[in-house]
């Protein structure tokens, strides 16, 4: 190999290395930009909700909105926008869902973490994952066409659209997340603590209830709060089976309307862009965002603050 050729090869190599360096350097800023999109999304959500809700509050007083209990946006004259009618619908269904799901989810968590053998656990956990992965519209279909008629056999006074049926089905939907997050919290309790209880003569049940459960309480409560947050934000089940009657109060047997169902109702109707009706879904969306945001923060706070450290 001649010297000249050798030199030119080195030169080519250095040139490519320089080019490589330039390429290497551009990666980090590029990825920073990609990562910023998630931040932009949050900013976009807050900005969008506030901006459009601002238009809404040009026509409706904020005070009436956050204190009113009548929701009659479709009235041609003097429509009322009192958010509590929708909030109470949301809470009615959420309360039913969590009352149904909390004990069942907890029981499953205890069974999986304290009683089940590895083999049983390997079968049951994927089943829970399947339940968690079913699209919510499927649950909505199930609530309206199966659960409601079934419940009507038991309670003849139950109307076709009601809070009870979507509440129960919503409960089924959030059971997997309660069960699996609570189980994680209980499995994280060190084995030594359990064995200490057994050594003192505790049965499995006593160890589970009196030792493991209190130790894992922060994680369990956090899982429930998270489940409540998901129930508040759930849309399709409550839209399909809950109805569209925004009545203030706790009426499990009657048609209700949740915040999410209202947004769907307006979206599927023909509210023109720029009408008060159109802007009202952003005001409702903002309330929804606020409720779930606070719940999520609260859930993380509980699991961090009250975690038992071993």
């Amino acid at each position, binding site marked *: 190999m001649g010297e000249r050729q050798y030199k030119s090869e080195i030169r080519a190599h250095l040139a490519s290395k320089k080019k*490589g360096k330039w390429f*290497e350097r551009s990666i980090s800023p590029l*990825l*920073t930009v990609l*990562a*910023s*999109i*998630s*931040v932009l*999304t949050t900013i*976009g*959500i807050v900005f*969008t*909700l506030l901006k*459009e809700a601002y238009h809404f509050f040009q026509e409706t007083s904020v005070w009436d909105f956050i204190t009113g209990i009548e929701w009659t946006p479709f009235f041609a004259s003097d429509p009322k926008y009192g958010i509590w009618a929708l909030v109470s619908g949301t809470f009615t269904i959420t309360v039913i869902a969590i009352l149904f799901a909390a004990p*069942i989810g907890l029981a*499953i968590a205890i*069974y*999986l973490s304290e*009683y089940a053998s590895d083999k049983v656990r390997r079968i*049951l956990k994927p*089943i829970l994952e399947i*339940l968690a*992965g*079913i*699209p*919510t*519209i*499927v649950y909505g*279909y*199930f609530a*309206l*066409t*199966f659960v409601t008629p079934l419940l009507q056999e038991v309670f003849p006074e139950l109307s076709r659209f009601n809070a009870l049926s979507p509440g129960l089905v919503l409960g*089924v939907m959030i059971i997997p997340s309660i069960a699996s997050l609570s189980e994680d919290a209980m499995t994280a309790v060190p084995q030594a603590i359990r064995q200490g209880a057994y050594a003192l003569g505790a*049965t499995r*049940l*006593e160890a589970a209830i009196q030792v493991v459960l209190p130790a894992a309480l922060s994680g369990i409560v956090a899982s429930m709060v*998270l489940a409540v947050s*998901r129930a*508040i*934000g*759930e*849309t*399709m089940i409550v*839209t399909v089976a809950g109805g569209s009657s925004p009545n203030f109060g706790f009426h499990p047997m009657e048609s209700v309307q949740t915040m*999410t169902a209202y*947004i*769907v109702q307006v*979206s*599927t109707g023909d509210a023109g*862009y720029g009408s008060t009706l159109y802007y009202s*879904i*952003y005001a409702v*969306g903002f309330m929804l*965002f606020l409720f*779930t*945001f606070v*719940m*999520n923060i609260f859930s993380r706070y509980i699991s961090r603050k009250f975690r038992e450290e071993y």
Partner: protein
Amino acid sequence: MKQMNREVVTNKMNRRLKMNTLAKWIFFGITLLILCILVILLVRIFSQGMAYFDWHFLTNFASRRAENAGILGPLVGSLMLMVVVIPIALILGIGTAIYLEEYAKKNWFTHFIETNIQNLAGVPSIVFGLLGLTIFVNVFGMGPSILAGGLTLALLVLPIIVVTAQEAIRAVPNHLAHASLGLGATKWQTIQKVILPSALPGILTGSILALSRAIGETAPLIVVGALVFVNYLPSGFMDGFAAIPIQIYNWTIRPQEEFQQLAAAGIILMLILLIVLNATAVWLRNKLNRKQQ
């Protein structure tokens, strides 16, 4: 000293043991109850929907007459949505995960992004719909198009992909990266040739999970303005569209029994898509894992 009464102790012990056994069976029964609900749900859907689930259903457009109705429009709409969602969500999600795991310094900005992603994961899907309606449909002027719907769904599933990809990247043993860097590879070469291939099975699983979520989402698409009645095939990504879950919704809320059976048939189609997707994920993961070993 008071002596223990053997009989009392035995009785008490027996009662406690019985309670334990009883509780075990109650917990087990409750767990089985959930299994039963899943079975009832599936049986109900298949018994209602099988009558309508045939070739005609897959190859025809929606109709006002139940016996003529098909799901072709929404099926194509859903597939085209995925064509938008997959590249965007994957590039954004995996890029963010690589940044957070490999490039970001441990400072407030990194912490802020991570907290932000956790919060985004908890935002109700319908709120993403409101975001899409304002930003994509109105501000960017995309109208209620497949592109607008797909972008909305991509942002919705972004947190799932980021978090699972982060976990997968974190799980790659450090010595692999060290070996690569020691041989003179640059940081990006190491990420591209060593870390990503090794994290691929995990990333793939997370991505499939995210796509499953996107296929079944109804609420954000309704808000963005998806159509409920489509009797043409979209010719491009700027066209209006329907999606499978929206069609299911539309059929479910009709009072007539036949339309609810159509809804069940639509659910069967959606479940089949989900099963195929997840089975592919499992298959790919096994294949990749074997190759690595």
